[in-house]
């Protein structure tokens, strides 16, 4: 018999909307949600009055680096960082060494993660050895449980191969996820191309390197009705292309990352390679346009693109350093802090379901408070049940805070203001762009499949990873 965990006095936010009330989990399930729950002796009681109780998060874009990159991250450290960020499940990206391009490699990686308290799902590559020449055994990968295939780290350069992947993958129910990058346009770039890169003397990555492939793939999906997912879109124009495609009924979904929503290229001015990431941090104008499209509901998923690297791969000139930054641990706070900025710029989330808007209006008094909750609902949707749906997870896994649903629950303290420090990083790597940055909102308590992984903002290691 494990103790019940009772969240008292918060707002409950789930796919049906927002309501006041307590929530209790017992074992692997939610046993009560909404209304008042009277604690019993022995219950763990969490004071949730400062914030929101939400379904746990799902990351559809995590580089766990296993196999081959254990110097940067292990399944254990990666899932610890995920838990601290409020994640109940992560999708491991397949650009490992060797890449996850066949069922045996997928099974081996998953076997290593089976005992971990955060669920690890595997993607597979689109092409063998991620070399962009021949299709991976997609049917065998699908049979091994792979739901999403991607050559992430590289785009599929050959348009016809991408067309075939969409065709072949569609009948298997596979999501074909593209890393949108035309290599000939990308060149040897290290940061966003523009006035800033020119002044710094750094080789630029033009926005069109991404946008041309976004446009190409949208037209392929339009022609084939394949299931296309566009990863980590970073430019305003990319987002606008997706908006147009969706309006046309093209079967496409799109991802944006916390760092493209929160950080901009000016951070590269000191040549600090922690900010070197692919796609690169873009201009303030791009960031604003991403939020604009996000307010319109154009993006389906916020994925972290959590990309750990050992020190020596990052303590180098921008020409030599690796692309990528950590994300799991601070994603929700970064996005929430960014959303508060979007509110200041006058952006209001559009197109929320009527029932959700009505529930928000009933739960809070002021218009400003309703707008903030509207944003939170959209953000949590993009970080929890929408990625879960993309990855084919059971509806009960995350999304509904109701008796009978799985006990995957996060308390997000929206009143917290804090500054992450390097000694709080749980990843094996340390390349986080959020160190020393003031964030608003903090993941304080996390329960995954009934196990309390984070309490009072601290990881609960014993009994979970040990």
């Amino acid at each position, binding site marked *: 018999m494990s103790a019940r965990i009772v969240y008292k006095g918060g707002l409950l936010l789930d796919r049906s909307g927002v309501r006041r009330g307590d929530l209790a989990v017992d074992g692997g399930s939610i046993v009560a949600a909404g209304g008042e729950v009277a604690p019993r002796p022995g219950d763990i009681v969490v004071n949730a009055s400062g914030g929101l109780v939400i379904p746990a998060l799902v990351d559809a874009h995590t580089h766990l680096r296993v196999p081959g990159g254990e110097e940067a991250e292990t399944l254990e450290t990666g899932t610890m960082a995920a838990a601290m960020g409020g994640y109940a499940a992560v999708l491991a990206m397949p650009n490992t060494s060797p890449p996850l391009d066949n069922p045996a490699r997928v099974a081996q990686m998953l076997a290593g993660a089976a005992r971990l308290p955060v669920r690890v799902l595997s993607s597979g590559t689109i092409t063998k050895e991620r070399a962009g020449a021949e299709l991976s055994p997609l049917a065998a990968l699908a049979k091994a449980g792979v739901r999403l295939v991607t050559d992430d780290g590289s785009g599929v350069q050959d348009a016809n191969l991408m067309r075939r992947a969409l065709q072949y993958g569609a009948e298997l129910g596979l999501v074909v996820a593209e890393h949108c990058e035309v290599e000939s346009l990308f060149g040897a770039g290290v940061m966003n*191309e*523009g*006035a*800033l*890169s*020119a*002044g*710094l*003397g*750094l*080789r*630029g990555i033009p926005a069109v390197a991404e946008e041309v492939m976004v446009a190409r793939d949208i037209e392929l999906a339009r022609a084939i009705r394949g299931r296309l997912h566009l990863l980590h879109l970073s430019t305003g124009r990319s987002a606008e292309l997706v908006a147009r495609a969706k309006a046309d009924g093209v079967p496409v979904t799109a991802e944006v990352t916390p760092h493209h929503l929160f950080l901009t290229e000016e951070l590269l001015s*000191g*040549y600090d390679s922690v900010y070197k990431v692919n796609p690169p941090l873009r201009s303030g104008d791009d960031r604003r346009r991403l939020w604009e499209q996000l307010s319109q509901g154009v993006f389906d998923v916020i994925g972290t693109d959590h990309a750990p690297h050992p020190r*020596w791969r990052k*303590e*180098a*000139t*921008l*020409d*030599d350093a690796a692309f990528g930054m950590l994300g799991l641990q601070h994603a929700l706070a970064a996005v929430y802090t960014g959303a508060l900025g979007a509110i200041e710029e006058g952006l209001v989330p559009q197109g929320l379901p009527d029932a959700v808007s009505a529930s928000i209006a009933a739960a809070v008094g002021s218009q400003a408070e309703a707008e903030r909750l509207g944003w939170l609902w959209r953000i949590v949707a993009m970080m929890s049940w929408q990625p879960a749906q993309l990855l084919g997870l059971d509806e009960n896994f995350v999304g509904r805070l109701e008796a009978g649903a799985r006990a995957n629950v996060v308390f997000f303290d929206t009143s917290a203001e804090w500054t992450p420090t390097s000694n709080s990083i749980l990843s094996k790597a340390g390349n986080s762009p959020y160190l020393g940055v003031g964030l608003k909102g903090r993941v304080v308590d996390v329960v995954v499949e009934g196990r309390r992984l984070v309490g009072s903002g601290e990881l609960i290691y014993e009994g979970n990873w040990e």
Partner: protein
Amino acid sequence: MANDDALKQGFWSMGQLDRQGAESLLRRARHFASGPRRLDLLDGVEIAALFFETSTRTRVSFEVAATRLGAAVINFDSKSSSLAKGESLQDTVETIASFGVDGMVVRSSAAGAPELISRWTGLKVVNAGDGAHQHPSQALLDLFTLSERLGSLDALSGLKVGIVGDIAHSRVARSLMDGLDLFGAETTLVAPATLMPPRGFAPYVRATSDFDGCLGDLDVVYLLRLQQERIGQGLIPSFGEYVARYSLTRERHRRLRPEVVIMHPGPVYPGMEVDSAVIAAESSLVRSQTRNGVYVRMAILEKVFGAGVME
């Protein structure tokens, strides 16, 4: 005083200097140009010269400058070093720093390397050219050479300078634009769109692709070196076409006003950026540029590594 602080960690970029700071360095360079060859202003100072890219004039002139000031120069040969065996730049510079040198002069193909090396080692670093970023000692020697020709730094005000060629990849252009701006000169960048940096990176300069159209307006024509690889990168179709549009040929030279001066950071590729006869003409300052490099670099080294300047 503010200027002393500006170069406290080294000299990476012209952006660290205000007009006063640049003037004081150039004044000091003029003093060295007319002074005795042997000085002991940096007696006991050890400077490591790290040239990760090949260089003749910059490396040797820094070395001569340091020697004349009494400093010892430790040369680092990147081709026979552990860097060639895969050791990282950070390891290499930390190793050299651990020997207790007082500072470094660095030439690197990586933009930002001097600033990063200073951050990693805590040492003062002087930039001898970093990627397409900055080459501040070159800009100062160009300003020195121009003021020598024109009689004063004040004469730079309103001067119309055309910088012609591969602006996009040029650290010389970036530093020189900054330097000219400090003294009120008006810079026009001249290049085809493919060799021009993205719009808006320096709002205070003009840009054009039409060399012939602006020839008659210029007081100074500053030609940049063109690398062979620009053809393979698809930035220009051929050398022939480049020469036809952007080389300072004898024919174009004749159309310049008689008092116009020609400059080039070297090494000159005769017949490409500029006709060899034009480079040898009286209007060419190329030889003066090379000679003045030593004096300006003496001033820089003294400012960065010296105990204090006595003017």
